[in-house]
């Protein structure tokens, strides 16, 4: 009887074990998928933040430390339009874009152009422009502080869960990813197929020769700075859909942008997207294992890149 019981228990136990194992394996697959989706969603925003900085430094040669302040401006403009006029944040992108572009374009035409003309070479200009950007950071941040204060602002936009093959994530994050991809694709096509895009690429590769070939370098550099500001503004608008915003939020996004640009390669739009998604994925994987290592891993990658491949993955 005992043998029989034992036999029975073994036989009946096997399917139960198999089911449990299948359930565990499925749970693990869902968890991995969940982590990957979360990484891609975050990566979209990182990429968009970095595209702007990459343009500004890679082409216009302005290491824009105040990049995050343009992100903040985009976020606050979207918040105001949504909370006061009920304008959909995605429509705000179209409204705010030209406005932020003009700020960036005007800044280059005035501040950076005068620095460029007073600098004997580009290396001196880079140093001067970086210092000017520090000043800009404080000016923009303090003006924003005077207008909006230091309070957290926010609104709830599509903060509902979407279940995709077992991975649950917020709908607003999916919107930000799709918007970031769309903006990136449009900008890539602009650079690849338009006359102005070709001029920008030529200026990025060799500004002197591009100038000799009839490209209005000053105009192109100002345009690049303007486009960089637009990208930052777009990123800010998308960030405001998912996170609380604050007038002092800029610097932390500037740091992320610098890491992504170093990872993807200076001046490369595709590189910024590759870097953004890579960093998003790495961040998500690390957070799921040990969240406390999140920033340490970012800085480790940054240091490693500077040592091994300073020009980044797709840098020239």
């Amino acid at each position, binding site marked *: 009887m005992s043998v029989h019981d034992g036999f029975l228990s073994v036989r009946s136990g096997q399917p139960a074990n198999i089911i449990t194992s299948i359930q565990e394996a499925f749970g693990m697959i869902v*968890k991995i998928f*969940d*982590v990957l989706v*979360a990484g891609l*969603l*975050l990566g979209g925003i990182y990429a968009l933040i970095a595209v702007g900085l990459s343009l500004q430094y890679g082409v216009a040669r302005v290491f824009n430390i105040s990049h995050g302040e343009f992100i903040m401006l985009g976020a606050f403009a979207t918040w105001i339009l949504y909370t006061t006029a*009920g304008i959909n944040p995605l429509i705000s992108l179209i409204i705010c874009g030209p406005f932020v572009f003009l700020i960036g374009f005007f800044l280059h035409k005035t501040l950076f152009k005068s620095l460029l003309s007073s600098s004997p070479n580009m290396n001196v200009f880079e140093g001067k422009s970086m210092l000017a950007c520090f000043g800009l950071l*404080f000016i923009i*941040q*303090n003006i924003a*502080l005077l207008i909006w*204060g*230091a*309070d*957290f*602002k*926010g*609104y*709830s*936009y*599509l*903060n*509902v*869960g979407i279940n995709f093959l077992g991975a*649950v*994530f*917020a*709908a*607003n994050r999916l919107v930000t990813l799709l918007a970031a991809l769309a903006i990136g694709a449009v900008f890539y096509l602009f650079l690849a197929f338009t006359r102005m895009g070709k001029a920008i690429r030529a200026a990025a590769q060799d500004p002197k020769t591009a100038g000799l070939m009839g490209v209005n370098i000053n105009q192109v550099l100002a345009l690049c700075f303007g486009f960089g500001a637009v990208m930052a503004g777009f990123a800010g608008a998308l960030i405001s859909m*998912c*996170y*609380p915003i*604050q*007038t*002092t939020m800029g610097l*932390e996004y500037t740091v992320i942008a610098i890491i992504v640009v170093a990872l993807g390669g200076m001046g490369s739009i595709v590189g910024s997207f590759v870097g953004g998604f890579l960093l998003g994925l790495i*961040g*998500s994987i690390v*957070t*799921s294992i*040990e*969240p*406390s290592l*999140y*920033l340490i891993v970012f800085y480790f990658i940054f240091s490693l890149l500077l040592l091994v491949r300073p020009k980044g993955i797709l840098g020239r």
Partner: protein
Amino acid sequence: MKRPLKYFKLGTCFVVLILLFSFPFSVYAKDKIVIGASRSISGPLAFFEENAFGPLYKMWVKEINAKGGIYVKEYGKKLPIEMLVYDDKSDMGTMTRLLDKLILQDKVDLILPPVSTAFLFAASAVANRHKYVMIGAEGGATSLSETMDKVPYFFMVLQFSNHYQMPVMADIFEEIGVKSAAINFIEDLHGIEYSGQASNELSKKGIAVKMIKSTPPDIKDVSPILKEAQRLNVDAYLSFTYPPVTFPTVMTAQAIGYNPKAMLLGPGGNFEVIKYVCGGAEVVEGVMGEGAWNAKSSPAHAEFAKKLLQNMKPSQLDWWGHDVYWTALQVLEQAIEKTGSLDHEKLRKSIANDKFNTVLGETWFENQMLAEPCYAGQIGQWQNGIFEVIDPGPKRTAAPIYPKPPWPAPKPKE
């Protein structure tokens, strides 16, 4: 013999000049009390200047000056207050330098504290070195409380982990029947102390702590941590984080449909602004936070809440710190009146030993920290838009809601 006489005459003239000019001016020409402060007006900590102690000291100065000032017996008159506030840009090194400047160069009569626990830690040593009384505001820590005997001129008013929020939280959890918990904490003194104390106190009550995770202050996505807690199916989720992580914790939990039976938030959960940031009072219904006080705590609290609403935007209200910060200012004012002096040694003795009548009722310090019976509450819970005190005992203004209600469906506008 001539030379010594000459020096004697010169010396006498010098002393007479000093007596003529400095002594009478210092005693009779005193026409105001200058109070200095190094506050984080810009930078990451600016939020606290705008929502925590910042609006209160401004309101206090306005109120004091409206009634002619504080009566200081040794000057025989009321002296109005003049504030001298510098922006430390949320930088601790700048803050300590500015504090030195205020005391040594600007020669302010009194000082108010800087923002945050870590800054208080540094400022307490500076104040003590110059023998200047400083009553802390935003911040408090167990490790800071352990060094109080070394900084006798420093006093703390805000509650912190073992003073007495985490023991009270464990009592509440035991009462409502929480069996298991998950903790996420920020990697700084606040997070480390709170997570340690919470885990200790919960274990004493037989509540299993199934997850403890730490996160950097600017983590962008907390969903992996929330999902881990969801998988562990714990009753309570505790987030000892600052507002930039606290608010997204609520928003992300709502989006992914993670609704633990109890959710307790660190700094941020106590601010009225959470309702504005997270999408409305109904979103935070049943969410717990560190604190707490409200208009029902006492008639004095009701009056105080009314006064706050007359002087600031509703979104600036802080249901953890505002009553104790006001208490700190009232204690300073009453200590000056009691001693009739701006002498820091006299003020220190008075604050350490006397009892004061404040918004909290009878108020006194024990080991330079506000005594436990003085507080209006330790743990709050959002119920119908009010941050109710849910401490067991007479301080309770509403019974705890358990389990927490489900997250509301998004509004049509969304």
